[in-house]
């Protein structure tokens, strides 16, 4: 299969394309995107969010609240400001950042090449638009599965026009292509032309992308395979059993645990009144509620269904299993030490753990999100030590799968720019 254009130059959409031509066309748009002020871009994205809300476009995609929260001006501007050393205007001109000798300017790196994963299709939208707000042009290789939501959302860009920014012109700075995984030649073309390579994916995919030839000046941003889990302390447990279980049920059910930020294990610091098994029972109740009322589970493939049934039987012997007859969700209670295997598809393992400082031993760079339901005092006193060797985020339970900046321990906006200095 030859590379196919899914989004970009309207003349070629759905057709086999010459990648080098697409890349050359995108590079020509660098001046255009560079000429737009960051203020106008923020304004444009705020209007895009408004369009999404008013046109009901968000009804058609999953996880829309996160999209709105992230791209509305108030959040985008503050995230950008934080990542760019306190002043978003560095994207437009040289700015005084409070240092005595220099003025600073953040120039776009150029062509951002992205390899998107299919497990969470909408993550690609965050990734692509992050390139746009930093005034880069971008070409993304979509996953062969689940790209429809992404393209649908990208198509909304051209329907928004502000006084200063024409969305259809913004669209021309982005291309999304479908390339066969075995088409190494095309992947090499993408890689060799990249100023930044952004790779989302599992271990195997990441290794392949890392092995593609690139220029010496190309920056790599790797969003590789990650594991996430949650912890509940006894102070919060004693006052909020139902609400924590409900929030965790949502975190488990969103993306069916296929996101890197989805929890697979939850450690519970028991109280005299609430045990871990009671928490497991409440979580089971809430997973059923979420499945029947909020986020019905999609189809599972046969091997996954079989794996779930196998796990249930395995833990029926060595622990306790709470589940419906269907494979919709599964809560496993066990006293086994450590993190449970992440099987996904709404299988969550509850374990008692009285000393939460022991969480530290589970963490390395492969661990991403630790969802917490902890008192403020515990957060401040424990999380520094717990996250020394790993864990990039400690959001409250209920917000585990929300994309935010920084992500995977990186201020991605910052990684997409080159810093230029000038003597005052």
């Amino acid at each position, binding site marked *: 299969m030859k590379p196919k254009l899914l989004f970009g130059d309207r003349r070629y959409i759905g057709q086999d394309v010459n990648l080098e031509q697409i890349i050359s066309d995108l590079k020509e748009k660098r001046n255009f995107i560079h000429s737009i002020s960051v203020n106008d871009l923020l304004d444009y994205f705020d209007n895009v969010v408004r369009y999404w809300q008013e046109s009901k476009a968000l009804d058609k995609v999953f996880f829309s609240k996160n999209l709105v929260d992230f791209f509305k001006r108030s959040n985008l501007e503050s995230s950008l400001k934080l990542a760019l050393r306190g002043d978003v205007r560095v994207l437009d001109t040289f700015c005084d950042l409070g240092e005595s000798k220099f003025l600073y300017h953040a120039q776009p790196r150029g062509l951002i090449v992205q390899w998107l*994963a*299919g*497990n*969470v299709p909408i*993550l690609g939208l965050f990734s692509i638009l992050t390139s746009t707000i930093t005034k880069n042009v971008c070409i993304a290789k979509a*996953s062969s*599965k*689940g790209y429809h939501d992404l393209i649908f959302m990208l198509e909304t860009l051209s329907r928004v026009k502000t006084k200063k920014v024409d969305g259809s012109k913004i669209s021309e700075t982005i291309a999304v292509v479908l390339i066969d995984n075995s088409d190494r030649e095309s992947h090499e073309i993408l890689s060799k032309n990249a100023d930044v390579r952004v790779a*989302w*994916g*599992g*271990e*195997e*995919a990441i290794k392949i992308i890392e092995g593609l030839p690139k220029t010496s000046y190309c920056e790599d941003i790797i*969003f*590789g*395979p*990650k*594991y996430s889990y949650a912890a509940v302390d006894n102070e919060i447990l004693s006052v909020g059993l139902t609400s924590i279980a409900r929030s965790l049920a949502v975190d488990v059910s969103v*993306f069916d*645990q*296929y*996101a*890197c*930020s*989805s929890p*697979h294990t939850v450690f519970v610091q028991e109280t005299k009144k609430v045990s871990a098994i009671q928490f497991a029972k409440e979580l089971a109740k809430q997973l059923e509620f979420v499945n029947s009322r909020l986020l019905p589970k999609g*189809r*599972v*493939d*046969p*091997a*996954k*269904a*079989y794996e779930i*049934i*196998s796990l*249930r*039987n*395995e833990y*029926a*012997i060595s622990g*306790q*299993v709470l589940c419906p*007859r*269907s*494979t*919709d969700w599964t809560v496993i209670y066990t006293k086994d030490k*450590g*993190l*449970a*295997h*992440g099987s*996904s*598809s709404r299988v969550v393992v509850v374990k008692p753990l009285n000393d939460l400082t022991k969480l530290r031993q589970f963490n390395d760079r*492969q661990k991403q999100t630790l969802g917490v339901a902890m008192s403020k005092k515990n957060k401040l006193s424990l999380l520094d030590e717990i996250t020394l060797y790993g864990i990039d985020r400690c959001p409250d339970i209920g917000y585990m799968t929300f994309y935010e900046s920084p992500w995977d321990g990186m201020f991605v906006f910052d990684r997409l720019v080159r810093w230029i200095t000038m003597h005052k």
Partner: protein
Amino acid sequence: MTLSEVLKLEPFSLSDSAKEKLLTPLVHEMARWHYKNSFEFKRICKTYEFNVHSNFLISNLPFLPVSLFKKFDLLSVPKKDIIRTLFSSSTSGHPSKIYLDRTTSNNQIVALQRILMNFFGNVRRHFIIFDSEETVKSADGTLTSRNTAIRGLLGLAKKIDFILDKDLNFDFQKIEKIFSGIKKNDYVCFFGFTWLVYNLFRDYQRDESLRVLFRKLKSSDKFFLHIGGWKKLQDLEISGDQFNKMIGGVVGVPTSRVVDFYGMTEQLGTVYLDCREGFKHVPIYSDLIIRDMESTLPSSLGETGLMQFISPIPKSYPGISILSEDIGRIIGVDNCGCKRLGKYFVFEKRADFAEVRGCGDTIKI
């Protein structure tokens, strides 16, 4: 009726409803046995709130996935009563371990022989095995799936010959010698593992020497029986028809007599062979339920799903209700063109992963 009495009946002689009446009390009895004697089986029943002492329907019996036999030593009799341990073939590196006592082993052999005789006639055949003699040797009472299957055939055989050397290549001299001793009215059955047979024959597709050699065999009543390894052939995109034509063409057996044989180490004895119509039949010694992959409820006739096999034969291990990793479909009940009664089905494929791996690919913890 006791299990011994049922095993004396012809395997496809009862309608499905008559079979159910016969099988249900036997399954009740054996489920209660395992509940009493297997800690693991009892835990599973309790997890699914299944009352083993009730007058339950067979379709409500909890099922044990084959993977459980890879992770646990499942026994329902004292270990001292075990006479043989079977190991399944394994692509994962962890084979199933099946512990057999004398009762279970004998009943499995009776069931196997009754089913095979139904297909191949009540005659002892000369079995020509596409394997090496080394395969059936067991020094310590443990058996692999290959030697288990071959040993199961011994009781049906007038004679057995192996035609591969220890490196699993054809021993041409030996084959010539064996063939020269076979007469026209001798009954012959070739037997081999599907993937092994395919690998052997693939190399001779354009080489006439093997075809010429097999044409020297004088027997006029031949079958080719093959078992297992479909996953490997699926990877190579070889269909059952293609396989049968390829093999039949070389060894001189009509494709209608090239018979695929489906069975599980976890329920040895109850095997499922292709009839002349191309369907596999469920004998009165077992039952098949197709499970919907999402709801796990029994599927309707004609729908595909995971295959659950129920048999009252396993006594030394809790293997009476096994969920296989394979996907199948029941084609009909009591009305197959081959006149065998009971359910008949097709094996479709191994359950494959279709899920998308991405940054949520948690790899191994």
